[in-house]
């Protein structure tokens, strides 16, 4: 029997506000435990929350970027449950009137192109963090009250791969609008998944499980792949999926059931009486809309139109806001297509190898364009350029000066080349003979030798021509 996998994702995003969502404490990461706290985020008796408007603004930005309908009235609710990392033993969240609803995220990857539906986006406060010791546990409340945005998709993804693409596209947009660090290791982006199987062709959803504890996008994909297999095997054997929460064990690559005791919650949501509901001012919203940066999709389309890039190239250039910005700076200085080739080729390879971000890259757009100009103008060879690129990136030096300093200009003086070629022929008489006798390949060996001697500064085409002239001439 064949099954269809149905996946929905819940992403928790820490918004990068300077202060917490309901008090003035700093949101900085990595300080000593319980140093960024006050009576409000410690939930001390008598303290009251006051909404940080910046958090609301960032939340609205996400909602706009995800094409959601934004609520006209902002209201918060209390989600009640006991846990030591939750100082008030309730979390201020939004329940039946979220910040935004009914949006979508465009996901494009190669042939794959879909609008994945977003169910809701809501604002809430983060909890503290527990540290378990042998006989006791400690709580750090620095994270308590950091603004969290929960982005919930519809069950609208049909493979773990789609879920992965959704997360990648989401992260790209979130980075574009600069609302979060989106760092899964530091916990500024967290993701839970709902997954169920149904027989192909059926429209109603099967019984789902909720998967938690995934620490990377790849982890999400692996966990979902495992869980889809597990559910399929279960159904194949005539069993039934139990609705439950399961934790992903990355080491073993499996999902394991969470103890059921911890999930039997009735959260007793009710409107938060400490925060009076208010109307979302039209002007405030308009201001946010006006300040929205260009998002990946429109940017891609503009790259195609303005720079004549292919759909594929444009998509890659637009996928990351730093790359896009870099590309545009370079494209203003030199041929966009050449820039793309280098960005996608040697530069991207270097960044991957050294794990360097676009922002940290020392290669200035002027330096890259200068180099490209030197290649196309015949000043340096492509081979020289490849080596030079690494040096420029690592030292940040001016490529033009380096070429002069190191004497890397292409040798275009034929007499100079001829001397070297004669020398190479003399040293490799066997190969020269072979060529003369019709072994076409032998010439490549000789070209290589000449290149070696000129340290790559000679034009291989020219060498080839001169060599042929010499050897063929001698054969006559």
């Amino acid at each position, binding site marked *: 029997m064949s099954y269809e996998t149905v996946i929905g994702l819940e992403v928790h995003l820490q918004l990068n506000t300077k202060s917490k969502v309901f008090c003035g404490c700093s949101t900085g990461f990595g300080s000593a435990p319980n140093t960024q706290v006050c*009576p409000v985020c*410690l*939930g*001390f*008796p*008598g*303290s*009251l*929350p*006051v*909404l940080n408007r910046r958090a609301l603004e960032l939340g609205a930005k996400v909602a706009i970027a995800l094409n959601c309908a934004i609520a006209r009235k902002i209201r918060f609710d*209390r989600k*009640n449950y*006991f846990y*030591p990392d939750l*100082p*008030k*033993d*309730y979390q201020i969240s939004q329940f039946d009137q979220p910040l935004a609803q009914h949006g979508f995220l465009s996901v494009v990857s190669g042939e794959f192109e879909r609008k994945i539906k977003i169910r809701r986006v809501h604002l809430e406060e983060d909890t503290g963090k527990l540290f378990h010791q042998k006989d006791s*546990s400690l*709580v750090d409340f620095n994270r308590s009250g950091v603004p969290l945005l929960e982005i919930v998709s519809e069950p609208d993804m049909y493979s773990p791969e789609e879920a992965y693409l959704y997360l990648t596209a989401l992260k790209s947009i979130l980075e574009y609008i600069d609302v979060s660090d989106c760092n899964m290791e530091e916990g500024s982006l967290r993701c839970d998944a709902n997954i169920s199987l149904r027989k192909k062709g059926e429209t109603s959803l099967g019984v789902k499980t909720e998967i938690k504890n995934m620490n990377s996008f790849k982890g999400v994909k692996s966990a979902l792949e495992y869980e889809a297999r597990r559910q399929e095997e279960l159904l194949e054997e005539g069993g039934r999926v139990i609705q439950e929460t399961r934790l992903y064990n990355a080491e073993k690559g499996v999902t394991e059931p969470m103890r059921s005791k911890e999930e039997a919650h*009735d959260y*007793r*949501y*009710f409107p938060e*009486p*400490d*925060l*009076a509901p208010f109307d979302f001012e039209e002007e405030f919203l308009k201001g946010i809309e006006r300040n929205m940066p260009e998002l990946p999709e429109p940017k891609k389309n503009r790259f195609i139109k303005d720079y004549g890039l292919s759909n594929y190239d444009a998509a890659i250039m637009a996928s990351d806001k730093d790359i896009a910005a870099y590309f545009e700076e370079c494209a203003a200085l030199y041929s966009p297509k050449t820039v793309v080739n280098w960005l996608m080729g040697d530069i991207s390879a270097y960044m991957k190898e050294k794990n360097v971000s676009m922002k940290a890259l020392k290669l200035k757009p002027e330096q890259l364009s200068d180099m490209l100009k030197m290649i196309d103008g015949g000043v340096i060879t492509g081979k020289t350029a490849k080596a030079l690129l690494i040096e420029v990136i690592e030292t940040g030096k001016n490529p033009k000066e380096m070429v002069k300093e190191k004497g890397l200009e292409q040798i275009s003086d034929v007499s100079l080349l001829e001397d070297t070629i004669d020398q190479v022929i003399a040293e490799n008489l066997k190969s020269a003979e072979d060529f003369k006798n019709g072994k076409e390949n032998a010439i490549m060996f000789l070209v290589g030798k000449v290149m070696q001697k000129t340290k790559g500064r000679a034009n291989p085409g020219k060498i080839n021509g001169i060599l042929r002239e010499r050897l063929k001439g001698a054969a006559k």
Partner: protein
Amino acid sequence: MELNTLTAHALIDLLNKKDISPIDICNSIIKRIADTEKRLNALAHFDKDAALKRVGDGFKPSPTKALSGIPVFIKDNICVKDELTTCSSKILKGFKPPYNATVINKLLAADAILMGKTNMDEFAFGSSTETSCYGASRNPWDTERIPGGSSGGSAAAVSADEAILALGSDTGGSIRQPAALCGVVGLKPTYGRVSRYGLIAFASSLDQIGPITKDVEDAAILLKAISGHDEMDSTSANIAVNDYVPEIKKDIKGLKIGIPKEYFIEGMDKDVKDSIKTAVQKLEGLGAVCEDISLPHTEYAVSVYYLVATAEASSNLARFDGVQYGLRPENAKSMIDMYKKTREQGFGDEAKRRIILGTFALSSGYYDAYYLKALKVRTLIKRDFDEAFRKFDAIVTPTSPTPAFKIGEKISDPLTMYLSDIFTISANLAGIPGISIPCGFTKNNLPIGLQILGKPFDEEMILRVAYNYEQNTDWHNRKPENILK
């Protein structure tokens, strides 16, 4: 005359004339407390040396400040930095907040002297001050009787001249009912008039801090000192606070006052009923136009209140879990066991009762039938008042259906106890201001209170009606004589 028996405005006059010093006032209070407190148990935390120190060498009265050198007692649910603040509950044993409530900062800015904390029903759950972990407070007019509650300690202290001024909090009548039962003035401001920051919440949508004083002018002075918008409380209103004192001295000729028929119920004390009727005639004599009106949804107020208030309380009191502060019993076997032991040992019966009731009202499957429906009826109750205030300047009712009852009389019968607040609850549900002033005594010499309700943020009007009534009667000048007998 002993200074402790005077009003704040009388003392301010004496201080301005330099006839007395703040230390004299403090000493007279300390002396009175030494005499009466054993009998009354009105105070939860009082350290006379600390009080004297605050008014000692360093203190220089500054006449420009509203309460310079005037001592104020604070209900035990209002946070005072580094001072015990326990809501008269075992679960907050030893708790000293690291910060001041906004009202405390305002009092300090007005140069008031903080004296100590007054006893209360545990977490303000009660109408008699009997649920306090420190034991019941007693009514100065008859120490076999309760002083009302939950701000019973504040009302008893002011009534017995242990205090000049006191702050209480009022969620369903907790300022007005004890003020009535102790024969003093108590005012619950409009919701949002006074910042709740630092008031340990009972029911966030109903709680307000307010003054308990010996006369109406003092209530006006203390209210002015603590009112105003606070950035730390987003439910506090950004509406200007007028200087009440000159305004309340205007006469009440031609003012329209409504007398709701729903507030004269069966089973009500006859003396109370008669006193209110006489008081209404007095107001008419002063030129007010009194008319019978109807507030048709009054009968639902108690039910609505005990759903909304307990629902919010169940959530507000969740934080008392033994993790960060207050009680944490030894020998907990697990996290859940720690929660259970802390709350089982820390909360009294009434607190447990209300937490369970509120938890139930919010539970899945019951939410719509109880909590949500209660919210809808709350809106109807509010509309009753909106409607009435279109035609009337104020509404006058009894504060409590009965005078002070005997200690232990109702403690085992929560439903009867809950009915003590039957006339005060609606003002909290509607968010409107209300004041209780003395308007007579029963045959047994127990005080009776007159409640005056007003439009939102029109404290001026209820203070004005109250002041005019008070200045033309003598009830507020009577003092309890039998405390030490």
